[in-house]
């Protein structure tokens, strides 16, 4: 019992209905202290609904949910005082400057005015916004707004930080800067719970993750565990002309070797442990693709294997 209470987050058969629509359909998972826990899934999988229930702004329809061992329904204030929330939209205060955003937000947590300035400046520096303190929100770039939103979620030194699709819509440089900062928070011992529909983000950041689809968890484990359990070491991508002969030849070779094929609109994916050997074997069997590409398998392939469709929509 002690161990359960000590975990920052425990969900057991958690459900969320909006009228007839079932957004979250009985999911169970738990997060260890200091862990970075990823929730991977396409839009509409139930990720944001789960995040909103954890951040106490949306009541659950059924099941059990404990945050820091407390019930969000009855202990919302206590939970929120120890939680940092980075919602999907930045929702910064556009009437205020960047620094004022951080100062006022501390006031919402009951920090005395005199202490707010130093903390605001410290967080601006940490998020590489030190020279933007007096700027209003609107002129900031997308990456800066995101970093300011994360800085705002850190004003109460949260024990757990919730990030709902933190890098959606950011350019690669802004994403890498953000990952690096999140990694530093993790090193400081902050528990991170993040949703994403980018598999590289989940592979980079998450110690452990669940894959959600249609409101249920379809797989759980570390990124490497999931890859080794649900897919092969390599994936061969093949492109053919319209000739039926090639596709039929591929199907026969694969079934003889016991390999799985996914047929996408523009290409075929073949799951194999040795991609190059497969291509050699295909050519010898009279199958001639227009293009071939051998790569390491990723979480995208895990998702495709489990649901039969592509992750990013």
């Amino acid at each position, binding site marked *: 019992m002690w161990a359960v209470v000590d975990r920052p987050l425990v969900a057991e058969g958690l459900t969320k209905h909006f009228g007839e629509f079932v957004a979250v359909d009985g999911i169970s998972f738990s997060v260890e202290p200091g862990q970075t826990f990823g929730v991977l899934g396409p839009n509409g999988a139930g990720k944001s609904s789960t995040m909103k229930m954890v951040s106490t*702004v949306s009541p659950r329809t059924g099941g059990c949910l404990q945050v820091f061992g407390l019930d969000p329904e009855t202990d919302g204030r206590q939970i929120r005082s120890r939680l940092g929330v980075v919602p999907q939209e930045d929702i910064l*205060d556009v009437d205020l400057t960047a620094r004022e955003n951080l100062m006022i937000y501390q006031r919402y947590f009951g920090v005395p005015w005199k202490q707010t300035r130093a903390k605001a400046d410290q967080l601006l520096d940490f998020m590489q916004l030190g020279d933007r303190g007096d700027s209003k929100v609107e002129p900031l770039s997308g990456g800066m707004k995101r970093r300011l939103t994360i800085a705002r*979620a850190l004003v109460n030194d949260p024990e757990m930080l919730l990030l709902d699709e933190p890098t959606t819509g950011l350019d690669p440089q802004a994403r890498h800067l953000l990952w690096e900062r999140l990694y530093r928070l993790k090193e400081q011992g902050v528990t991170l719970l993040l949703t994403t529909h980018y598999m590289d983000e989940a592979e980079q950041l998450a110690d452990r993750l669940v894959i959600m689809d249609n409101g249920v968890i379809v797989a759980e484990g570390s990124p490497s565990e999931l890859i080794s359990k649900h897919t092969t070491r390599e994936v061969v991508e093949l492109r053919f002309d319209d000739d039926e002969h090639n596709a039929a030849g591929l199907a026969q070779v694969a079934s003889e070797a016991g390999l799985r094929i996914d047929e996408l609109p523009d290409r075929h994916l073949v799951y194999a442990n040795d991609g190059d050997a497969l291509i050699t074997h295909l050519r010898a069997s009279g199958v001639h693709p227009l293009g071939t590409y051998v790569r390491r398998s990723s979480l995208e392939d895990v998702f495709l294997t489990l649901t039969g469709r592509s992750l990013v929509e």
Partner: protein
Amino acid sequence: MKALGAGPLPVFERNAVAFRNQWWVLLSGVAEPILYLLGMGLGLGGLVGDVKLEAHLVSYPVFVAAGLMASSAMNGAIFESTFNFFFKMKETHTIDAMLYTPLRMRDVLLGEVGWSVARGGVYSAMFLVIALAFGTIESWWAALSLPSAILIAIVFSSMGTFFTTYVRTWADFDLMQLAILPMFMCSTTFFPLSVYPGWAHPIVQATPLYNGVALIRDLHTGLVGWHDVGHVLYLVLMGVLFAWLTIRRMSNLFFA
């Protein structure tokens, strides 16, 4: 255990900090009733002469100034609790961001309503000073007209917030103008109740602005009576009713 927020005060402070860049909106809030006082009160007043209030005669500028003071409380409160609140709720989602902190919905709403009441109160206070300068205050009872104006601001602020929870787009605010403008014109602001036909009296008397205007007019002229207790009770009840409705409605909207 960390401290759990500071109640509604930080929400009020947030608005005060944001307001530092918009203080000039106070100018329009005080300029409007002054123009009405000059145009209607002094200009038209020369043609109208005195107005009969029950058994007493009151000069027209005195009559109009009381109505304008009540209206300025209404205008300040309505502007904040509708346009500005809608902006924070639907456009910038500043309200959503507040709810991720230990603030509760009632803290947020009390802070927001408190701020719009402050704006209505400041409008009324500025107008009271001007009314004194124009010599339209005839009794020491008028000292109570400022708290009365604040009560009026509370009523319109909670009504305005409640209305705003139903607003879908900016165009919906035109519906509100359809209610506010006739009320401003017809709540005995510019003409006494006696000019209306008998059947219209209960309609006028049922409006919150009428009760506010009548109360402040009695205080400015010193013609105070037990019926003023009725006006105060009416305003308190309306304020409590709409504050309760708003908290209920907002909780349903946000914690879905």
